């Protein structure tokens, strides 16, 4: 499971290109920076109010310098601090090149569910609705199935929706899907898994890309 999360983050890191403005959600997305190509330069935005977030401090963390998950961070040269209204202004305005969010479920049309499991977990919606609305590219990361094997990639989400038609790519430990014109396409399979492993554990209808590839890290 820990390995799966690392693997998903490692694949997601390849979606981050030189010169991009990137917003990472909590959970698996927060592992993405560990796997970035060291030759590229990007700016991480945090919705509490930083543009130009750097790595976790080696020591002497500052209680007043944290990311949107409340964890201590650092800043890079060129960084700025601002209030959260401006932070979300950037997000809604389309200044974020890629937003990488954790998901609970994604539907075949790119609907995202990631804010509540009614009666059980109540994390809250946070900034996901704004990111889904404003980011130029939204990538959802999640393990392919529930622990009991139930699929999370569905014809229709059973959990309350965060935002409709927003997810452009899904990365799991088994596969990578893209969603174009409300249609889902299987682009990559992780080498250890078979096509049947994907088909049996994905409820959503998908087509197979003519350029289907094995996922490499």
């Amino acid at each position, binding site marked *: 499971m820990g390995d799966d999360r690392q693997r998903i983050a490692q694949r997601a890191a390849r979606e981050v290109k030189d010169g991009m403005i990137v917003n990472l959600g909590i959970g698996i997305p927060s592992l993405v920076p560990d796997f970035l190509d060291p030759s590229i330069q990007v700016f991480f935005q*945090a*919705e509490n109010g930083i543009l130009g977030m750097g790595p976790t401090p080696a020591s002497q963390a500052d209680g*007043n310098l944290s990311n949107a998950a409340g964890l201590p961070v650092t800043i890079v040269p060129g960084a700025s601090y601002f*209030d*959260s*209204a401006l932070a979300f202004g950037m997000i809604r305005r389309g200044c974020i090149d890629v937003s990488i969010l954790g998901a609970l479920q994604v539907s075949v049309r790119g609907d995202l569910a990631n804010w509540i499991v009614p009666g059980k977990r*109540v994390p809250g919606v946070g900034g996901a609705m704004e990111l889904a609305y404003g980011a130029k590219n939204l990538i959802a990361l999640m393990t392919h199935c529930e622990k009991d094997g139930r699929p999370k990639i569905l014809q229709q989400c059973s959990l309350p929706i965060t935002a409709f038609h927003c997810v452009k790519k899904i990365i799991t430990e088994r596969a990578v899907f893209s969603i174009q014109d409300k249609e889902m396409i299987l682009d990559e399979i992780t080498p250890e898994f078979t096509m049947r492993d994907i088909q049996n554990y994905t409820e959503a209808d998908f087509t197979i890309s003519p350029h289907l590839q094995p996922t490499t890290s």
Partner: protein
Amino acid sequence: MSLFNKITDYDTVKSVFFDGMTLLFGGFGGVGTPPGLIDCLIDSGVKNVNLIGNDAGFPWIGMGKFICMERAQTLLASHIGSNPVAGDLMNQGKLKVEFSPQGILVERIRAGGVGLDGFLTEIGKGTKLAYDKPLVKIGNKEFLYEAPITGDVSIVYAKKADTFGNLLFDKTARNTNPYVAMASKITVVEADEIVPMGSLDPEEIIVPGIYVKHIVQSKGYNWKWKWEMTDNA
């Protein structure tokens, strides 16, 4: 308490709080929530408070401390995942929680603070969060109407305040504080440092003192951050 000297003590601030008040609080995951004013709120004994802020903090951090005492009757926030007690109280019907998208919530507080009558957005349209929000049609498009938010009292955490109440903030402890400071009838500021008027560079002031009623001296955070704890107990 003149226009130009608003420094007071925590005992005086206690009398500002009242049962059933709407309380706006600054902070994001506890960062930028005024620790001394949270204790002052707890000491004041008020109950049935209607809370509005970014999140429910952690059970031992920020507004979480007060929420765990079951003295809030409602909470309007974007996120409560870091405070499982808040989720339990919600599921038990002891705390009425309304969720708002995070950026929409701070814009609603800003709208109240700058005297606008709300705004329109497509964010959240069609989701459960929109269920009771008016739909407004402009041209051929339908938008959600988001109402302005104002409070009876706001509590805010600043890095520096001058005696007039001009404020500046520290790094990500700024977050929602500037707008929370503008949106209530009475704004109380806890500041790490209080300086005479004229000591702040007029360019660096984030919130002009015009919005501030009371200023108290902070002793800094009096909780451990999650990442400072040896285990999660």
